[in-house]
């Protein structure tokens, strides 16, 4: 935790409301996100109890499994969920744009993409499990399910897996998105409670965030945001309702269960839309839009794979797939970190405090400085910056700057408050610097040892050429009958 984030929490304690940790929004927010709040039956791995889902704050869909241990009812639930989620997702496939690429064929990318919002990390994990428990099912055979069920499973898997890709916004957990932008006066562990987090950020008039957060811990006032339900509710309300359904299955008994879970879901539904409003209040950062473009590409590619009839996502990555995913994630993480800092002075502040970045005033500038002779002559402008920040950068460190993203500079010398830099990249081919390309004396500048420059990793072997050190080629995927028969109980 940076000193800045720590200080923000202290200030939150003092003022009684959460403090901003960001000046812009670092995640894309769709104009029409779909909120998804799943509940699970306690004690079960992935037995859905209910879900509230929808894109209209005023009209949530409530799906209920009146007897969560009943396999058929579970798949009926999955089919019902598919009926809501699939049209929403597929709606984004209609409009595409053509993306030109240098040195490669242009391709089609969806003009927008779906976005799922869940309350927290555990809902995210549950979404992954729901996907896992449905994507291998089949529409024919002994345990046939509705054809939409495996498709839903594959989409849920896609969203949940993508959520772990740094900087992606296709599926967001509300608590995480909010914590990225606000510091509360409680601990990070307590921030995992959506109600208390929002209590700190936006306390009801007349109360402090601290009071609102405490109140939010009372499950009778604010039921847990799921997927786990309140044990007291389970014992006193849900168990009798389910028992009644068991004894006399029917509309009325089912409605009783539905009413019971509605009381648990309604408050969270409202909270989710408040979270959306709070996040909307922040202007979207530049990097967030760029990352959303990547998300759209990933969405488009997956939809194509699905349309081409590819197999469901495997249970785990093979050796090659794992290494390649890791490389993509590491790259995404580096550029996510850099972009956020360059987009937002409050994020940059954390790096300034550790001496990895600094801001200051240009006190000397030599835009015409050059190195090399003749054709090899290159412009290497020199700058000296006066800063009050505690700079801890070694000579030769590569630096970027938020104001001139294409440029790269190098530390020449740090002497007390004076930092001398040399701009080594992004000066173009001209003999003299274009006006404005080099900061002038008196300009405020910021430099940081952060880069979102991309160095492509070396290629990996094809999966069928996995070397002996890693277990040799994996067996080919054959959909096993075990997969689709696996009980879901």
């Amino acid at each position: 935790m940076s000193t800045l984030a720590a200080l923000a929490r202290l200030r939150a304690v003092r003022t009684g409301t959460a403090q901003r940790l960001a000046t812009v929004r670092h995640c894309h927010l769709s104009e029409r996100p779909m909120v998804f709040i799943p509940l699970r039956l306690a004690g079960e791995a992935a037995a859905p109890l209910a879900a509230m889902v929808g894109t209209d704050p005023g009209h949530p869909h409530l799906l209920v499994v009146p007897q969560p241990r009943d396999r058929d009812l579970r798949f009926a639930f999955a089919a019902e969920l598919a009926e809501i989620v699939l049209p929403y997702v597929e709606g984004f496939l209609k409009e595409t744009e053509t993306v030109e690429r240098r040195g490669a064929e242009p391709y089609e990318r969806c003009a927008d993409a779906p976005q799922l919002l869940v309350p927290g990390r555990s809902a995210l994990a549950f979404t992954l499990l729901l996907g896992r428990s449905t994507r291998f099912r089949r529409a024919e055979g002994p345990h046939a399910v509705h054809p939409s069920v495996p498709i839903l499973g594959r989409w849920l898997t896609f969203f949940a897996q993508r959520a772990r890709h740094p900087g992606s916004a296709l599926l967001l957990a509300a608590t995480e998105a909010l914590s990225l932008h606000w510091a509360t006066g409680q601990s990070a562990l307590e921030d995992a409670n959506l109600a208390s987090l929002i209590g700190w950020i936006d306390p009801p008039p007349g109360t402090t965030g601290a009071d609102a957060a405490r109140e939010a811990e009372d499950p009778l006032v604010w039921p847990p945001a799921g997927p786990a339900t309140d044990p007291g509710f389970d014992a006193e309300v849900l168990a009798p309702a389910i028992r009644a359904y068991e004894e006399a299955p029917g509309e009325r008994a089912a409605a009783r269960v539905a009413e019971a879970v509605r009381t648990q879901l309604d408050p969270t539904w409202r909270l989710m839309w408040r979270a959306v409003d709070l996040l909307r209040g922040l202007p979207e950062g530049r990097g967030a839009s760029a990352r959303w473009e990547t998300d759209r590409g990933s969405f488009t590619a997956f939809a194509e794979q699905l349309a081409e009839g590819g197999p469901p996502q495997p249970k785990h990555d093979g050796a090659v797939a794992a290494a390649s995913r890791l490389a993509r994630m590491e790259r995404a993480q580096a550029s996510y970190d850099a972009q956020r800092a360059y987009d937002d002075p409050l994020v940059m502040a954390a790096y300034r405090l550790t001496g990895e970045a600094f801001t200051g005033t240009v006190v000397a500038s030599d835009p015409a400085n050059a190195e090399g002779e003749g054709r090899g002559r290159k412009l290497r402008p020199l700058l000296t910056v006066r800063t009050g920040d505690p700079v801890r950068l070694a000579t030769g460190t590569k630096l970027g700057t938020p104001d001139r993203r294409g440029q790269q500079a190098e530390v020449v010398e740090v002497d007390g408050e004076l930092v001398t830099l040399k701009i080594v990249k992004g000066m173009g081919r001209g003999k003299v610097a274009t006006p404005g390309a080099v900061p002038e004396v008196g300009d405020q500048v910021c430099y940081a040892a952060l880069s979102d420059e991309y160095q492509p990793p070396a290629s990996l072997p094809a999966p069928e050429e996995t070397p002996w050190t890693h277990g040799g080629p994996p067996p080919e995927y054959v959909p096993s009958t075990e997969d689709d028969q696996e009980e879901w109980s």
Partner: protein
Amino acid sequence: MIGAMPSPAAEAAAVVDAVLDDLPRHRGVVVDSPPGAGKSTLVVRAAGHLAESGEPLMIVAQTNEQVDDLIVRLAEEHPGLPVGRLSASDYVVPARVMGKAAVGTKLPELGDPAVVVATADKWAWAGDRTWPWAIVDEAYQMRSDKLLRVAGMFERALFVGDPGQLDPFSVVDGDRWAGLSWDPLQSAVAVLLRHNPDLPVHRLPVSWRLPASAAPVVSEAFYPFTGFRAGTEPGERRLVFRAGGMRTAYDRALEEAASGGWALYELPSRHTLRTDAEAVQAAALLATRLVQRAPVAISERGERPVTAERIAIGAAHRDQVAAILAAGPPPGVTVDTANRLQGREYDVTIVLHPLSGRRDATAFHLESGRLCVLTSRHRHACVVVARAGIPELLDAHPSAEPVRLNVPVKFPDGWEANQAVLAHLAGHRVEAAPLR
């Protein structure tokens, strides 16, 4: 001879012979090499051995510096052996490597040397050629995804490395692969052995670097099941000062380290930032005082002055390193993080204890490999700078680490290793002088 302990040299030589014997018999051979146990010597020796067979050999190291070091060693031991070095286009050939290897960015530029050395990253770009033999150096610090990128290039390989040092890591969360035998975040050796459990694993039994005062401590704390011993006897190595001291706490700490191999320079207990000004300053001043005392190292290599180049200061974090540098240690003294000190050797080291001044320990600070690297770089003496209170911190440390199924438990446990080292240091404690 029956019943007598073989000499360290004989014992080590027997292991090296066994390794070389095993090479043609197995697809892969692993050699665990504790700190200073002659890993490079083994690599160079094996390289010569394999080159004799006339089959070309690729050597994979992890950093450019390691590649250069190996080339220098190869040129010393096998002067006639043609060596090539693959490198990136912006690589500047250091003076010590000049003329010792053909340097190029692509294989064809190297001619056809018997041995080609490059970093794992560079090898991954080297193209399709297959090699009958490879030697993978620092294989415990190599992430398995890197091995995956180069393993298709060789048929057989010798993997050499130190299992006690820092594990490879990533900035992203790799939980999804936890428990898989090919988890890309595991070390190259871990993945290799999980898929090929029958490969022979040898262990170099003697540390030539660590003195008799340090080998047992490091061995017990960090290699509890696979111990090693020192190559020298107690008293065989000595550190003496040609300039007199002034009985300051710094002098006393240095003298304690000179006589017992270790010193704990203990500052009063206090919770601090990790760039604790007093501790940082103490580390720099100890180095300054050490240079002023004109130390001389007496060992099996003879009598040599301990110059600034033979002294290092180690810390856990980069900002600590920056702070120590800012505190002005003598020019020429290496100051660096544990990560970057891996594989290096000095006469005397000064270590800022990773737990000094902390209120709570995190997994990062408790990682046994970090302390292992820091306390096993020296040939003569190690001075640890720490605030009092670390035993209390360890005592209060909650154990709630998550457990992942099918992930082999790693030993030693960081807690136990820290405890063992502290217990030993307690016998070499020197109380810090009050500042000003």
